[in-house]
């Protein structure tokens, strides 16, 4: 289970961020999105989001001194209660997909398996891992 990311198809429209922020905050507030599109014109953007199964070794899991990151139902997730906001996971994430906000580490949780962002992506830059396989 996971996200298939094809950065070459991304047009930087940010519908994924809009959808994610609506899920997180109930309003369009891009800062609350757990996926971030970072432009680098004329090059391709960076898509900052957890790759789940496609991330080799899951360095965030081992980095966490509070053992608050682990696998649950096939997803790598952060346990908010256990998180001490130290930022160790943020530092090791190869995809810049983790942010610390209000002393908690935040990242994509794939909306529990039915990601809101994928539905919005018209170019296929984001696809559902299971469908793709």
């Amino acid at each position: 289970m996971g996200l298939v990311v094809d950065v070459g198809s991304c047009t930087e429209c940010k519908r994924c961020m809009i959808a994610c922020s609506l899920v997180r905050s109930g309003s369009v507030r891009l800062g609350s999105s757990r996926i971030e599109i970072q432009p680098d014109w004329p090059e391709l953007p960076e898509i900052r989001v957890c790759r789940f199964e496609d991330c080799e070794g899951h360095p965030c899991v081992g980095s966490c001194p509070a053992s608050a990151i682990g696998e649950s139902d096939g997803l790598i997730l952060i346990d908010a209660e256990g998180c001490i906001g130290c930022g160790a996971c943020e530092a090791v994430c190869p995809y810049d997909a983790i942010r610390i906000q209000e002393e908690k580490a935040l990242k994509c949780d794939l909306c529990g398996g039915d990601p809101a962002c994928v539905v919005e992506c018209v170019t296929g830059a984001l696809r559902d891992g299971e469908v793709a396989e």
Partner: protein
Amino acid sequence: MTGSMFDRILRIDVGKRQSSLWTVPDEVRAYLGGLGYGVKILSDEVDPRGDPLSPDNKLLLTVGPLTGTSAPMHAQTCLVTKSPLTGTILNSYAGGFLGPEIKFCGLDGIVVEGAAEEWTLLLIDDETVRFEPAEAIVGKTTEEAEAYLKATYGADYRTMSIGPAGERAVAMAGAFSETRAFGRGGAGAVLGSKRIKAIGVRGSCGVATADPEAFRMLVAETMGVLRSARADEFGLLGIFSKYGTGGGMPLVDGRGALPTKNHTYGSFEGVDRIDGPFYEENLYTRRIACFGCPVHCGRLHRFAGTDGRALWGRGPEYETMFAFGSNLLNGDADALAEANRLAELYGVDSLTTGVTIAWALEMAEAGKLSEPGLDLRFGDADAVLGLLHRICTREGIGDMLARGPREAALELGNDSIGSAMQVKNAGFAAWMPRRMKGTGLAYATSNRGACHKRAPIGAEISGALDMDSYEGKAAVLIEVQNTVNAIFTLVSCRFHEFVTDHDVYPELVAAASGCKVSWDEMAALGERIWNLEKLFNLKAGLTRDDDVLPAKCLEPVLGESSQSAVIEADRFEEMLDEYYSLRGWDAEGIPRDEKLEELGIAAYTLGSRATREAGATEEESG
């Protein structure tokens, strides 16, 4: 209930280095947002007779009830000011991300007035404004100004900036916002007159909707329509999605309506070396979308500069492909890209700048104009790039050309005005009025000069309306003008309306902001705004004589596919009379008091002719 409107506008006086929050009063709220707010506020606060480059002119950036929401194709920002190019009220639009960011500041708009003593950067964080020095980037390009602002103050600012052309008051200077531009009308020169080199906007607020569930359903429905439209390879949005806005160029060429060699011909033999499909295959590297837009008509491209360097740029858009391509007999996509890039770096509108260059080349070939160091001929890339440099630096002949096509022609004299393809000093867009009579009427009557955004182009180019006929075009045009003004209160993308049932707009507005309005009321608002703009222009001194096409339109278009199309002067005047009459205006194009009362704007009347003339005389003697 919290909706998508904040009812707050940020007012910034750059002369006094002060800012304040203004609660939008009910009489302004009745204008919905965007263009409505801009036109209403400018009409109330700026003297139409004033100098557009004086501190008294104001520049408004406004957004609407759908901006910053998940509704697709509402990324644009509306800019309203008095134009230094046309002397009319101006509305100009840029897509990208600036508009949503204004919304994320918890604002429905920004009003800038006054003039700074030193070059300034405006940094807006929510409702806080900082005035920072800009000396370090005076004389620098739009791109350098943007990069400096982001590097110095934060990469997360969304920006707009001016280049050397705006600093030097070039009449067609634009304001550039990252990958998009406020092209039309010289807004860059207005910013320059206020010594604002760049503006950065960064917001932290969320945009909520009044009825989230209803809004979510409506957006899902709209996205469904747009998904189908972008997948339809024969539909316009499908073509724009696949090839950018230049994708329709072969169609226009085939209809003999592609302005070529300063509107001498209606088709260009080199079209397939500069159009959207050519760029898609050879130069475009990336598809770029505005905020939340599934159509992604924007493009980035790489090209070889005339000096052999590998360069990149944004666009070019269809209007630029005409302005720096067919209309200059330039069939070299790299040279076109370089001109596009130069225009962007200097910060000028490629459209009216290209139209001015086309006029200059025609005058040069007729022996009426020359410039040391340049061989001014159509199809010569060095001539085009040389004139572009001179316009933007106001060197040599460029100083005259920098005033726009009509003003340059008036200065040159020698029967050159008839070949300046403009209305109110704004260049003709990439559609030939002789081939498309309704579009000709649209150019003539537009409140911002030679405007194609409110023209029956789709109906004429597709053949749904007989393109060469004058019959019934006035009524069709009026509906288009009112409709587009209505959707511009939401700052909808013009392309959105191509595939959207009008009744969807009030539904979206109600679910987003809680404001209940019917489409008929929105269309009536569009008409009210059109009349307010017209009144502003009349008060500024424009007359029926400004609603006129240049004399070249009376000569046949050359080339087989254009079928020797002409504008017949008497038929055109009849069509203009019909237009005025259907608008409820008198024979001089002055809105009748009954019409103003019907629209609820009686207070804006010009009064009787006698009163006006007495006022004008008093003004002159005083």
